[in-house]
């Protein structure tokens, strides 16, 4: 002991004594042979006389053996591959945002929001029209009822070109009743070109009055000038009237062309014209016959300065 104290004088009294506590704490170092010879001998002495130290040493040995057996654990290849696999964007995002640490309520709220978003997106993206059509191909009776409603909607849509037929509305009965007669009359007209027709000058004098007589209709919406004119030899006159309308800036309205031959003895004109040219048109028409025009209320409103007219040029009745 004296020799050892001389070699390693660590204490103030040149002694290197070891308490039982230190002896206990150095047991692992003793077991792993990490102590210097002096310390090793001191711990060995301690172990020799201390039952607790012997028990502790035994525990450490057991622990070490057990840990070494645990060290034989191996990790299977699939797990290694999983670990080696690059992290997905979602995983990285979750890690960065510390999603696991978020309050539970917030997590559920977010998840619910995502689910709602997905449902809304699906509902808005789904082509329901096609789905319904596919469903109707199935042949159930309910779907047939849906088709009936479709036909109703088309009927409603057809109301729109109402004004096209406005002129035709007034005459069908008349036309059907008279058309055979007029057909028979027509050759006579051609045969007698000397049929008295009012001269442009005389009619021109009268038409302004007639035009002035057009009753002013008041009320909401727009207006429509509806009229008729009887003339002889409409086959010849018709194109001239059409040319005149175009010359005055008139434009076809509705679906048929200007001067459409509604019946063999009647030509149909549906057009728009600058309001300023209305009088000129009346003067021109007066050259062929006596125009009878009236101004009617109509739901369709025309742009300022433009008027809409519908009239028929009929063969003079004999």
């Amino acid at each position: 002991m004296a020799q050892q104290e001389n070699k390693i004088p660590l204490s103030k009294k040149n002694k290197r004594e070891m308490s039982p506590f230190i002896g206990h704490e150095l047991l692992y170092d003793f077991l792993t042979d990490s102590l210097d010879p002096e310390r090793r001998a001191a711990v060995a002495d301690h172990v020799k006389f201390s039952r607790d130290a012997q028990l502790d040493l035994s525990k450490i040995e057991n622990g070490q053996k057990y840990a070494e057996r645990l060290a034989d654990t191996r990790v299977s290849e699939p797990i290694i591959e999983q670990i080696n696999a690059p992290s997905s964007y979602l995983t990285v995002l979750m890690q960065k945002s510390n999603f696991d640490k978020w309050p539970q309520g917030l997590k559920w709220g977010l998840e619910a929001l995502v689910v709602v978003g997905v449902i809304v997106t699906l509902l808005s993206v789904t082509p329901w029209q096609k789905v319904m059509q596919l469903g109707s191909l199935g042949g159930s009776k309910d779907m047939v009822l849906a088709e009936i409603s479709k036909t109703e909607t088309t009927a409603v849509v057809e109301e729109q070109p109402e004004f096209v037929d406005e002129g035709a509305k007034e005459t069908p009965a008349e036309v059907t009743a008279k058309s055979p007669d007029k057909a028979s009359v027509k050759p006579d007209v051609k045969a007698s070109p000397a049929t008295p027709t009012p001269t442009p000058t005389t009619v021109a004098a009268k038409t302004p009055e007639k035009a002035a007589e057009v009753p002013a209709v008041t009320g909401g919406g727009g207006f429509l000038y509806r009229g008729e004119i009887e003339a002889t030899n409409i086959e010849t006159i018709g194109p001239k009237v059409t040319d005149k309308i175009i010359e005055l800036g008139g434009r076809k309205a509705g679906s048929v062309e200007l001067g459409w031959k509604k019946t063999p003895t009647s030509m149909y004109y549906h057009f728009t014209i600058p309001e300023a040219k209305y009088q000129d048109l009346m003067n021109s028409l007066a050259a062929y016959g006596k125009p009878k025009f009236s101004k009617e209320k109509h739901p369709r409103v025309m742009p300022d300065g433009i008027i809409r007219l519908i009239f028929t040029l009929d063969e003079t009745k004999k």
Partner: protein
Amino acid sequence: MTAMTESDVQSIALFFYFSLLDDQKAIEASSQALVLCRGRKNRNPEIKNSVAIVAATKSVWDKYKVRVSRGRPNTTVESGWLIPESLDLGPWREFQKTASEDELLTVIWSKILKIHDDDISAGLGITEGTIRYRLGRALRKLGSMTQGVSKVKNGSTGK
């Protein structure tokens, strides 16, 4: 210095398996630690793999330790962690539950992953003496667990 090998990946995986005792979380944590490890190696190619492993696993453990309820293992036999036959994990579960964080991690690094004490101390930035001290206490505790289990198995009360 060499790049991270499969053996290093094994070490990282085992560290988290034994520290977390949770199959799935061990894989997640290992994946993160491996990324961290590679990052360290890229920044400092001179660093030893074992030192990088210690530093990275400690860093990821600090994140995961709050998420794991120690003493409630979540492992299955079929999950791909090949435990040696006839080895009872009971003492380790008990140790993982009761040991301090320092003791638990030091035993894993030193005795299971077989990392040298000087590398552990370099990775953690503490002295080798501290590592040895922790190991002594940890092994004593682990040893007492194994004795306790063996006594219970042999029908003794351990008195």
